């Protein structure tokens, strides 16, 4: 696939995988978050994205340490707990040609950051918003997170008395235009979803069930590898197609494949598995999420996609050049305008 082959050492822009790497991970061995970092690297490499064109953002928590472990050559900002989205909003306005990748966690986005998470969704800021969701606070050593299921038992915490937050449902309710769920134990699908998200012209939320092997990996808990492997149901087989000409629909049985075109001419190819699911149907998406919860399923895939909503930048009448490259003479009105301004002051 693409104009490079697996065997060559560089991608189409002449970079090696090494050019996409970050510092060695200091997370626990087996942490789902490491898989996420690996798939971000794989997706950027595969899509020939220059690391200099990416800016990374994160909040606070294990998830938010993660941006250090990929794309060392990109700028990054590790902000405050739950407040990555606002930071990303301001920074990306500096140069809207940059690709923003935000990495957050369930504690970061569904607790203190719930407000910012939902508001960035409704503004449709072009941002890949990955939430590494493990149902537990890892960095503070094992407290319940807002996505932990009711009655979950954790050492030292006892039973969780509250119902969980469903991140995809929240994103849907906030009018997010790209909502997906993935499983860190299913890297291929995760990679395809990240690729699609990188080409989405708006906020792309990927809720990645990413088990915490140290504090929360009991087989019966819904954020564990074992439960995920047993209960995962892909709603479709998804592949991201960077070049439309490569799609050969004929290979598939008629009626089993749907192609969704993205703003930049790339597209997402969705192959049905079992039932008929249309991810562009908002109503169906809500039903699907509700159904997964009732039936105890880890539903993965592209849950919802709306390519018609304008990205946030659209209403700002921004210049073609990056705002942060405007010369000073474009920033200070001419001397003679001040007389007019003073005449307004009455």
């Amino acid at each position, binding site marked *: 696939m693409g104009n490079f082959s697996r065997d060559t050492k560089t991608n189409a822009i002449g970079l090696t995988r090494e050019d996409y790497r970050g510092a060695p991970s200091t997370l626990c061995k087996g942490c789902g978050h490491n898989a996420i970092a690996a798939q971000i690297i794989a997706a950027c490499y595969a899509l020939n994205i*220059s*690391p*200099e*064109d990416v*800016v*990374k953002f994160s909040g606070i928590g294990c998830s938010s340490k993660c*941006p*250090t472990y990929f794309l060392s*050559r*990109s*700028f*990054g*900002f*590790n*902000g*405050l707990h739950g*407040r990555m*989205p*606002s*930071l*990303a*909003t*301001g*920074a*990306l*306005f*500096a*140069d809207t*040609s*940059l690709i923003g990748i935000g990495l957050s966690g369930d504690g970061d986005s569904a607790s203190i950051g719930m*407000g*910012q998470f939902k*508001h960035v969704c409704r*503004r449709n800021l072009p941002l890949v918003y990955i939430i590494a969701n493990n149902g537990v606070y890892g960095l503070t050593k094992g407290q319940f997170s807002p996505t932990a299921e009711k009655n979950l038992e954790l050492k030292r915490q006892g039973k969780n008395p509250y119902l969980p937050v469903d991140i995809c449902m929240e994103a849907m309710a906030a009018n997010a235009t790209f909502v997906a769920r993935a499983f860190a134990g299913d890297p291929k699908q995760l990679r395809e979803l990240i690729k699609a998200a990188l080409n989405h012209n708006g906020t792309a939320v990927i809720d990645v069930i990413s088990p915490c092997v140290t504090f929360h990996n009991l087989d019966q808990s819904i954020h564990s590898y074992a439960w995920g492997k047993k209960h995962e149901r892909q709603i479709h087989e998804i592949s991201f197609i960077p070049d439309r000409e490569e799609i050969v629909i004929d290979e598939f049985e008629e009626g089993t494949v749907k192609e969704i075109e993205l703003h930049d001419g790339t597209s997402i190819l969705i192959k049905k598995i079992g039932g008929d699911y249309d991810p562009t149907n908002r109503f169906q998406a809500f039903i699907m999420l509700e159904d997964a919860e009732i039936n105890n399923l880890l539903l993965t895939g592209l849950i919802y996609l709306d390519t018609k909503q304008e990205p946030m930048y659209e209403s*700002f*009448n*921004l*210049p*073609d050049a*990056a*705002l*942060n*490259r*405007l010369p*000073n003479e*474009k*920033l*200070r*009105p001419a*001397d003679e*305008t*001040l007389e007019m*301004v*003073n005449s307004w*002051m*009455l």
Partner: protein
Amino acid sequence: MTPVQVITDESLSAPYVNDFCITFSTVNGSGSATANLTVLRALFKMGIPVSGRNIFPSNIKGLPTWFTIRVSEQGYLGRLEKDAVVVAMNQKTILEEADWLVNGGVLLYADHLDLPRMRDDIVLYPMPIKKISSELEIPRQIRTYVENMIYVGILAQVLEIDLSKVKEALAYHFKEKHSALDMNYGAVRAGFDWAAENLVKKDPYRVAPMNATEGYILADGNSAAALGSIYGGMQFSGWYPITPATSLPEALIEYLPLLRTDEETGKASYAIVQAEDELSAIGMTIGAGWGGLRAMTATSGPGLSLMAEYLGLAYYAEVPVVVWDVQRVGPSTGLPTRSAQGDLTFAHFMGHGDTQFIILIPGSVRECFEFGWRALDIAEEFQTPVIVMSDLDLGMNHWLSKPFEYPDEPIKRGKVLWEKDFEAIEERLNVLGKKWGRYLDIDGDGVPYRTVPGNRRIGSSYFARGTGHDDYAGYSEDPETWKRGLDRLSLKLETAKEVLPKPVDEKMEKAEIGIITSGSTYPAVEEARDLLAKKGIRTDYLRIRALPFTDEVPAFICNHEKTYVIETNRDGQLKQLLTLEFPDLARDLRKLSKIDGMPLSAAWITDQIVVKERD
């Protein structure tokens, strides 16, 4: 209540011209602002120095609101505690307002209001507003608004306000809306004519044309700050509404399209985003500042509290950003529509751990404009947050001022490295066997070189963080590295002192005592110094315009046996900061502060100092 004093012929024969205070009392939401501003503007157009203060409730409709105009031949702009003229349109407060009047003062009141008891040392002019209104053709839904113009007309007759100037003021307000102008002026005229025929003038107050406002403007501090920021090249603001700061970002929204749309491309050189709260407003603004945009926001006390955590990060990660704190009365929600200088110590040390923020304190609308652009320069030059402390009195009220001045310095972006600059510095460092690091102090002034996202040069990127970091922005918990980093931030602040606005120093011959003040207390202090001098107390005066303090400050304190620190808060926060910084001089400082929500008056300051000096 004031002792009863019957008006004598003598008081009538001594006219008060161009030196008194008028207060309009109306009900919040009744649309009186236009009427009151029309009077203010007409007086300004008559060439008389004026200032206008809105004293309003935290409410949209129904509660009492006051607008006070000080007319001052000598150009004093501070608040007067007593009124000469009250225009009363609110039943609930009419007795209270009558008490504010000086002996011989004038109470103009709508004649449908009850006057259960009244002082007999004041002049009463009932105004048949409803009757006059009933003879005018006004659509029902705007009748109460237009009725306000009737009292404008009556007042114009009583005080001899030039009607043609009233018309000019209305034309300014209504711009192209000719029918609105005609209707409102019709109401003014009706009031004026009624008074000419029916009202017998019994009071000594009047105005007379001067030429003291030629070349002056009337402006509020928030608009001035917004405009100054626009001329300072502001590019991004994430903001959230809060009284009394809201009109600052709203002024940005109003003026930016007029001043910062590219003539060739029609494109905007800025972006303004209304955030979901102050946590997000400051997050966006800091993100933008980090991204290389001239970034600013405006808020007030509660908002500043919410912004504290991100500002602490910006201080440590060295992100340029400007925050205007238009102060209101705290603690807590406090008095949201009243003025104070109560955030000073909080703002200066805001954040946990060792933080110290550069503070700018404008004392006039002209300085609001100047600090608008200057704050952005300082923030970028020193890669740090700059907090500009305005307040409700300065920010929302109408001040007579000399025109805004075009920045006399070029825009300063500080040590930002784009691709070519980066290459150059890499070469320079190569010779020394060094590499560029985001937090590496190359010049020894505490100010490192920064790069911003979008710089495509390999090696120019870095990972910004609030966690411990070394010269190369790498994560570090090393004790020595931490200490060195924090010490460098202190050095940076020292370097910054050189460019911070110096205090304004005004001397009086043979002065023995000193006065230190800052911000909006300036007009009251200026007037008080004249009043004190008349009583034989001569003062020197220093107005602080920035923190950290520069060397002029201790020098001033040393030169005076005793220095009063005058401010609008309970604890004397400026004095607290002076005491911390100059403990050896602290015994020469005297706290003179008050917080009741009202701007200080010259009379209060004078009385306080007189009592203390004669003890």
